[in-house]
């Protein structure tokens, strides 16, 4: 068994080995430190010319990556905390995502921007966010999120070596230490995969009755959903299945549509605040696809900054209990207000 961290690290190493065009850049990525979350550990020792520590210049280094990609390299830029991604917002939205199309498809931008997102470590309001929703909607940018359910290493490798468009590659901090596939290997779950490069998984309890509820999720929340599925089944006899995405945008709806056609009830889960979030995209796209044949709610962070203090952070970020509660409320068609939404 291997951890998400090790798999991502090895994917970077394989990519550097596979192609001289691959370069890895970011703040503090050099050995012996190997990056704030150690994802680049060991790389600079083997490839000192192609692994570069940068100044603290998020806009600059993402723009740098765009320029490198336009001239034939396949750069991987690490943003130390996803919270700083807005600094590179213009580089991503107005440069990375546009050059190919605006050039009339004459150029390519094979850039990967990797970044850890997420909270639950007490890092406070500017080091705990899940800000991917602010960039995901940009046409010309692909957003992929690592998950522990499905080895993210090959996905990262594909994004680097094979994908000619810019990719935002999101890694929830708490995934790094998780074992890949840990929850899924005991035979307790029945798993079905769809899609090739960045697949989605449909997961349900093996041998259970037909699910009455669909969770749609990604990243760390997908792990929480697994727990919720377990608890809902054993404590409440409510059977749910989950569709866990790795490619967040463009969203390949089919597996979700397939599940929701059966369950007619959808809960989207994301750790960031829900307003204009990924869940809203999933729900809307599905309504457009299926029509008004399913109920839906979003579970997400409360719409406030993420506080540093443990009890406050726990109250703001969605927990397994919130998923369970939302699922129960939904199955009771209780419209008294969805989870984690307030007036802020």
């Amino acid at each position, binding site marked *: 068994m291997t951890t998400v961290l090790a798999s991502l690290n090895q994917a970077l190493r394989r990519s550097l080995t596979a192609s001289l065009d691959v370069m890895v850049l970011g703040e503090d990525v050099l050995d012996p430190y190997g990056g704030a979350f150690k994802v680049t550990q060991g790389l600079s020792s083997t490839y000192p010319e192609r692994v570069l520590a940068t100044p603290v210049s998020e806009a*600059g280094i993402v723009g740098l990556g765009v320029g490198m990609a336009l001239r034939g390299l396949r750069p991987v830029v690490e943003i130390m905390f996803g919270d700083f991604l807005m600094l590179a917002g213009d580089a991503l939205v107005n440069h990375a995502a546009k050059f190919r199309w605006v050039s009339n498809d004459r150029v390519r931008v094979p850039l990967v921007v990797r970044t850890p997102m997420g909270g639950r470590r007490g890092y406070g309001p500017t080091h705990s966010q899940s800000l991917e929703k602010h960039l995901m909607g940009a046409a010309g940018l692909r957003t992929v999120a690592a998950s522990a359910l499905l080895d993210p290493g090959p996905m990262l490798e594909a994004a680097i070596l094979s994908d000619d468009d810019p990719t935002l590659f999101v890694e929830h901090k708490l995934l790094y230490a998780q074992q890949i596939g840990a929850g899924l290997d005991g035979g307790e779950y029945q798993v079905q995969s769809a899609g090739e490069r960045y697949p989605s998984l449909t997961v349900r309890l093996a041998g259970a009755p037909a699910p009455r509820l669909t969770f749609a999720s990604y990243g760390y929340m997908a792990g929480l959903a697994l727990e919720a599925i377990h608890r809902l089944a054993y404590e409440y006899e409510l059977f749910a299945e989950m569709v866990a995405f790795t490619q967040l945008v463009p969203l390949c709806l089919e597996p979700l549509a397939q599940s929701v056609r059966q369950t007619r009830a959808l809960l989207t889960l994301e750790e960031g605040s829900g307003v204009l979030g990924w869940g809203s995209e999933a729900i809307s796209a599905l309504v457009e696809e299926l029509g008004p044949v399913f109920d839906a709610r979003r579970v997400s962070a409360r719409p406030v900054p993420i506080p540093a203090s443990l009890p406050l952070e726990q109250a703001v970020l969605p927990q397994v209990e919130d998923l369970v509660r939302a699922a129960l409320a939904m199955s009771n068609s209780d419209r008294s207000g969805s989870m984690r939404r307030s007036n802020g």
Partner: protein
Amino acid sequence: MPAELTPAELYRQMLRIRRFEETVLEAFPRGWFYGTTHTGIGQEANAVGVLGLRKPGEVVVSNHRCHGHFLAYGGSMTALAAELMGRATGVCGGRGGSQHLIDKDFYASGVLGGTLPLAVGMALAERRRQHLVIAFLGDGTLGEGAVYESLNLAALWRLPVYFIVENNRYAQTTPIHLHLAGEIPARFEAFGIPVEERDTTDVLEIRDLAESGLDRLRRGSGPQALVLHTYRFSPHSRGDDLRDPREIERFRQRDPLRTHGARLRPEDRRPIEAEVEQEVHQAFEAARAAPVADAASITPALGQGT
């Protein structure tokens, strides 16, 4: 652009830009174009003096005021005219328009400052091929933080970028004393980037400066900067020009075409003028005859990988 940078050739190149842009401004009210445009009439010597020395494969990074750079780089005048007219045959098939020109070794975009990190990244890539990057920016663009992140990166890694500042003394309508503190060369020196500065519109002077700058770069000097104090006679874009007409008149005294044109004998100049007139006319006629961009040609923003 021909290797032989004779005085006559320099004149021709500047005149091509001048006549192209004058035609754009004249023809706008006739409805040939859609949107807006930024011309650099008066600044031609910068583009020609520097880019005349470009070698194949060397990269140009430009900005909103890019027609002159594009033509001096060797871009097709017809494709440029077509791009401004939204034709399928335009540089970017009509997708980019006046300020977004992307060609083999040419990149312009309309977000000020954002192109500088790109230029530095390109230099990182081009270093492998012993190529360099020439990046243009205006005085106003020195307001953008991305510029300084770029200078630091370029200097730290000794990357082959030639930063050419065209100080036309205005950011849109804001005069430089209201938008820039201190002196421009010091902005480069602060990062250890050697900088030369000249208040000139003489294409020969600029060519000589660029020649030595490019030479240093090609011999591995790391980044270099050239600050050219210049002036634009045309308005910022299509709109009103609110500058004092006397100021404009004063700077017209050193119109680069006049300064340099005076060096040529009239009998050498006239055929050039006739040829350029012809070239510009044909470029616009060809562009006008080209098919407009077709909505059916719209491709998705994301492809399918390699």
